[in-house]
């Protein structure tokens, strides 16, 4: 406890230290200066199309905002990345748990400069504006494929969006839930009352009501994308209220699916295949097949097409017909009769004779939101404006 002997630094040592730091700083700066020029940004003269010239692989950088094996959104994306990792001439680099802040810009720059990535796939919604746009301006020869629907005309030429619409999958999952439910009450654990979640809920409910029009659904919004305790609490409350199927839209459905299994009720997942988590109660769930999109991108990239030369569309979007989404492994509660119904309905959706959003559709306050006779395909702009819950869902959006 003697306070007199504080840290004593001789003057010479301080000077030596400063000199050493300065020398290190100077050399390391020179060092990066040397290597980044030939590797990273190729000069304005060189054609920077990322074709596999001379056996040099196309490096694709994937960025996730959470761990990539969370049974959720990120796992779905990482599965897509893994699908193209083994293709000859492709090398993927990945980074997990990158927040939607300036840090993602650093990660993108590092991937471009150090791993000489020529294609970046940032998978989280919030990466896009301003981070992807910012970096895209600095590296006009690198292509950015953002996972979302945010691409608009007028953005940098080297930015594109890809997305899969889950409405049709959730519609099918809803039909399955309706047929498997005995109590006629379904619970839904959602993160926030925003458009993608509301669309998910509504599509599910439209599916449910296309089989049993009297089924009720109770929604609980937890308030954020990942709140494990609240999610478990919400699931328990819904089961207490008699719900015997629990559907979910949060970042990682693991808690909800496991809690539902513990309570002995059925569950319908989302994002990726959670059947291993609930061998008894898992019904199915919409899962993303990002691999389909990524493989298509790779094919185009290898043939020398780019976003900049117009060979790759700036907006790639689709649903069940394009195989961008599919249903996860069916659980034991899905009987053969239900499976047959799913096959039949899926065929009708693919050939266009069944459209999920076919009017008249009322919201849960009774107001007609989509008038009779109107049909909106899943890609319709009108659907991105949905801010209501469909008839039969109890819950509020605000």
């Amino acid at each position, binding site marked *: 406890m003697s306070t007199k002997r504080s840290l004593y630094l001789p003057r010479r040592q301080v000077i030596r230290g400063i000199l050493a730091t300065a020398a290190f700083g100077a050399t390391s700066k020179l060092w990066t200066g040397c290597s980044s020029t030939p590797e990273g940004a190729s000069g304005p003269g060189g054609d920077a199309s990322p074709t596999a010239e001379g056996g040099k692989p196309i490096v694709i950088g994937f960025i996730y905002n959470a761990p990539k094996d969370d049974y959720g959104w990120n796992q779905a994306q990482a599965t897509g990345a893994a699908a193209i990792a083994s293709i000859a001439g492709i090398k993927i680099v990945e980074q997990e748990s990158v927040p939607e802040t300036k840090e993602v810009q650093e990660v993108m720059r590092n991937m471009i400069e150090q791993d000489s990535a020529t294609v970046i796939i940032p998978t989280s919604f919030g990466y896009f504006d301003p981070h992807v746009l910012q970096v895209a301006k600095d590296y006009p020869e690198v292509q950015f494929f953002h996972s979302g629907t945010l691409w608009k005309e007028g953005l940098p030429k080297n930015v594109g969006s890809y997305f899969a619409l889950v409405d049709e999958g959730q519609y099918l999952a809803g039909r399955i839930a309706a047929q498997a439910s005995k109590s006629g009450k379904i619970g839904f654990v959602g993160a926030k009352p925003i458009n993608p979640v509301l669309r998910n809920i509504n599509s599910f409910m439209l599916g449910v009501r296309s089989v049993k029009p009297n089924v009720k659904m109770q929604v609980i*919004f937890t308030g954020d994308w990942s709140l494990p305790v609240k999610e*478990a*609490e919400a699931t*328990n409350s819904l089961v207490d209220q*008699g719900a015997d199927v629990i559907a979910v839209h949060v970042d990682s459905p693991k808690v909800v699916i496991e809690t539902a299994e513990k309570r002995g009720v059925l569950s319908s997942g989302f994002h990726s295949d959670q059947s291993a988590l609930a061998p008894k109660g898992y019904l199915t769930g919409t899962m993303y097949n990002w691999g389909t999109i990524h493989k298509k991108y790779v094919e185009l990239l290898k043939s020398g097409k780019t976003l900049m030369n117009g060979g790759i569309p700036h907006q790639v979007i689709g649903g069940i017909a394009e195989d961008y989404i599919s249903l996860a492994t069916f659980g034991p509660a899905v009987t053969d009769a239900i499976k047959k119904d799913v096959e039949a309905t899926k065929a009708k959706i693919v050939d266009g004779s069944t459209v999920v959003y076919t009017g008249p559709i009322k919201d849960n306050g009774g107001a007609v939101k989509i008038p009779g006779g109107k049909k909106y395909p899943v890609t319709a702009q009108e659907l991105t404006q949905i801010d209501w819950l469909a008839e039969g869902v109890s819950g509020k959006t605000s």
Partner: protein
Amino acid sequence: MAAEALGWWGVPLGIMAGTLRGSAPFLFVSLGECLTEKSGKINLGLEGTLLTGAMSAYAVSYQLKDVVGPGLSPWIGVLVAGIAGMALGFIHAWLSQQPKVNDIAVGIAMIIFGSGIAFFFGKPFIKPQAPQLLTFDLGNWSSLPQVQSALKISPLFLLGLIIAPAMAWFFKSTRWGLFIRAVGDSPDAALAMGVSIKKVRMLCIIAGSFLAGIGGACLSLYYPGLWSETISSGQGLMAVALVIFARWNPIQCLWASLFFGGAQAIGPALQSVGIDQGRYLFNAAPYVLTLLIMIITCSPKKTLSGAPGALGTIN
């Protein structure tokens, strides 16, 4: 299968069940912090300890399930969580007792360090399912599945229920308890008694961190029962604040933990019966109530009653 809906009865039942399920982490962390603060040091790093405990318990339970069987491995996980907590506690105790070191600053560093360690080593354990701790089914008398499920009580929670009065007794009636109080209230007097301040504080911080580590095990091995990076969502920090709320009294720590554990269930329970208006307010209810209680019980004329005298002073 759920038999039928409970309707309005679901709300008190849900909150009660949420209390029984969700308060154990609060309880362990706040008891650990209570012990630490009684000795005159603050350990804000218990949030990091909680995460490290949760991760190590889950990891050990998963890794050992084939070696010792799924019945025993979670218990080893609990023990390892405590030991991991002790290791972090030792770092904090050592650092925060260096001359002119501020324990709050060290605590903040330990939050970052503890969560960083947990995230780094926890990566491979996000996906697998680890065996969970057994629960005592005290609800078998009831025919309602909702009640049966609400009364599945974790032995760790019961352990916490025992530790709280035991700690109160320990402070009040034992020689060692007196030493801790003396060190926390008046280090000079303790020194004159011939008690080593450093040793007492070191042991208190390590023991407190042991408890916080076990609190983490409650999260990952009982409820919600998985390892994810957002599993604590600030519960460790809240528990540290609870100690002030509970006026450094272990018994009141118990009530405060039950209150906060139950408060987590208010929002979902009300939404499940269709009350959606103001759900953000319900979710914020525990904080609002805490503020109110703090304001009502505070007085400008005296310092907080029960605060250890040496708390927040620098050696």
